[in-house]
């Protein structure tokens, strides 16, 4: 009885995993297809990778995606962290209001946020392009940073900052030497979320960009009307990079722990 149940759940999980990874494996396989077909694999070739590297719009969109993601991550992590620290010392009413508004971009459908920004930027008469895209990305990344830093601040021993002051640190020194190192895991995970949110964003970017400034998502969306296996090549590269980074992020703490344990034993 128990055995059959176990086998049942194993089969179920396998099917779900096939469902999850089928498109990913499919993309990688067909990026090496020698023909244009998206249905039949007719032989190995690297031609789509070559085409991709020679396609200036594709390379440009990769460039914009990375640059926007880096800037948006950096700026939103700094502002988000500073704000989270400020909020942790603010009174409850103010904190409540800011947190409510902060939740809006997360709770609202992205399309609503997108059109809101679109109308806002054109009301200001700003030309749509790199700047509007960057501002929009910063805007929707900060809430995630705040959400990931705030719990760390809440679980901090309130006496830690007092202890630093007590030992002669100015409030600023206490912040840099004691509080920031303590909430670092929250800041890093906030930055990581911000980076992927920005890297992957389509809907909001789609509404606020213009003048030929496209990111990868927009490129895929506009190119999807015609068959273009270069998209598969681009996708495969993204998949590999993301997978490597994620495995790294997940495995490093485990290895670290193991190493520490070993050190303690000896």
């Amino acid at each position, binding site marked *: 009885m128990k055995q059959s149940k176990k086998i049942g759940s194993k089969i179920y999980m396998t099917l779900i995993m096939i469902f999850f990874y089928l498109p990913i494996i499919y993309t990688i396989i067909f990026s090496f297809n020698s023909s244009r077909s998206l249905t039949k694999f007719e032989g190995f070739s690297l031609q789509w990778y070559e085409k991709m590297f020679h396609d200036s719009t594709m390379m440009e969109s990769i460039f914009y995606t990375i640059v926007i993601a880096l800037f948006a991550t950096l700026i939103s992590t700094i502002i988000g962290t500073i704000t989270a620290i400020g909020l942790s010392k603010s009174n409850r009413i103010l904190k409540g209001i800011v947190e409510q508004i902060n939740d809006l971009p997360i709770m609202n459908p992205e399309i609503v946020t997108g059109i809101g920004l679109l109308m806002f930027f054109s009301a200001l008469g700003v030309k749509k392009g790199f700047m509007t895209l960057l501002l929009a990305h910063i805007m929707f990344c900060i809430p995630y940073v705040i959400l990931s830093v705030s719990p760390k601040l809440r679980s901090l021993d309130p006496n830690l900052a*007092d*202890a630093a*002051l007590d030992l*002669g*640190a100015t*409030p600023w020194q206490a912040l840099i030497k004691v509080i920031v190192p303590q909430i670092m895991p929250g800041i890093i995970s906030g930055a990581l979320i911000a980076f992927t949110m920005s890297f992957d964003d389509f809907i909001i970017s789609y509404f606020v960009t213009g003048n030929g400034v496209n990111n990868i998502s927009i490129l895929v969306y506009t190119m999807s009307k015609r068959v273009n296996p270069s998209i598969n090549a681009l996708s495969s590269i993204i998949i590999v990079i993301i997978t490597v980074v994620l495995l790294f992020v997940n495995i490093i703490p485990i290895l670290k722990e193991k190493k520490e344990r070993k050190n303690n034993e000896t």
Partner: protein
Amino acid sequence: MRKLIQFKNIVKDFDGQLVLKGINLDIYENEFVTLLGPSGCGKTTLLRILGGFLNQTEGRVIFDNEEISHVPPYKREINTVFQKYALFPHMNVYDNIAFGLKIKKEPKDIIEQKVQRMLKLVNLEEYAKRNVTELSGGQQQRIAIARALVNEPMVLLLDEPLGALDLKLRKEMQHELKKIQQEVGITFIYVTHDQEEALTMSDKIVVMKDGEIQQIGSPTDIYNEPVNEFVAKFIGESNIIDGIMIDDYRVMFEDKIFDCVDYGFDKNEKIDVVIRPEDLDIVPRKDGKLKGIVRSVLFKGVHYETIVETKVGTSITVQMKVSDEKPVVNIEANEKMSANDFYLDVSDIEELTEATIVARADAQAWNPDTEELISIQKITYDIKPENGTYPVTFSTAAGTSVTINMIVKDENRVVNKEYQEEIFAVNFFKTVDELKESIALETDLKTWANASAWSLEDDTAVEITSIHYDFDPENIVSGTYTVTFATEGHEYMIDTTDKYEVGNEVGLMFQPQDIHIMKKG
């Protein structure tokens, strides 16, 4: 000795709540001062004001002849050992201790030297490179002390530093802390709610309650001459008895006059008498200054804690009428139901609720086959706040019903002038079955008789500690029985090395210097 710290009329108000109500306190150089009090008394608040982490609402803090109310914590020559230590988890032991020195940008070799000296002082030389999170509570505690002392403060503040340690470690650390204080020779201000800690370590104890100082003095002063009941009770166990000061050196309690060493009270002033348990001796009954019966004996490791009652408390006797009435049976609905008459006091009527009526009448309905209780759907009654008999009908959804009487009578109270106590209980009706089925008879008797006692001074409840009855609940038959309820009488706690049996008749002996007189209030 020089005055180092002066608190002048410190008031602290947290959102309209007065936490400190005007504290005046002087602390001298090299003193080990303990702020002692129950949680919420304001002791930690006072410490945090001195540390600079809180601003007082009113008053001044003077440190080394300078007003420091507006000096930020990082500029005060005061360091703190925090509750749960607040060690920086991302730094190792060495960096934690060196933190303050690094902030002051002291030369590296000096830092090294000072940190090593501190590690030696707290006996943790081997642990410099360890991660602080891997250390035990006791070790973390020592690091926290070292981290504070390395900055060579003039005053060290300790906020319940031993609270997180187990009993054995706590005792060790008490000695170690005292040793460290004597070695470094600076002022320690120590906050705790543990009276034993305060007594063993301090030069001076400040007892606080509700934001006010109750008493300041050396441990022996505070222990032997508590100024009021709160201090006496908070510092160690003690016997506190109401008394009257007849004259200087003459006190009356338990209707007898005794010699004592206290003076300076008004003639016939009402006072509290304190006698510590270790100052009382048990002697043969004829030799005792007081006579009583041993009520309980508890072994406490090195001695026995013996309770002797010298006088019984306030008591009241009521009648219990037991009948062998059978429950009402409703065959159609397959239900049984029972309830009994009960007495009430006029003053109870105002607060009478249906729940009380059900409880007092013990009204219940049940299914005779399954014994499952059936809820009572309806209660009809009409009552006026005057003596008389008022019917009540209980009925279930299926229509089974029982009618009983509520009898209002305003008597059955006993006032004890000497104890300033009043006790109340009423006669009651029960059936044989109910008595036989009771699983907590004394509690049930109290409920059935509605027995309660309270203090006439402040209207607070007084516990009814003894219930006396003269029937055997297992074999009871219908009839009238008496039940006596009583509060605790005069009891003395005595530390003895011999074991006495409960029920022994004994005498109590003490000397004039064992009696301590406190003002009332």
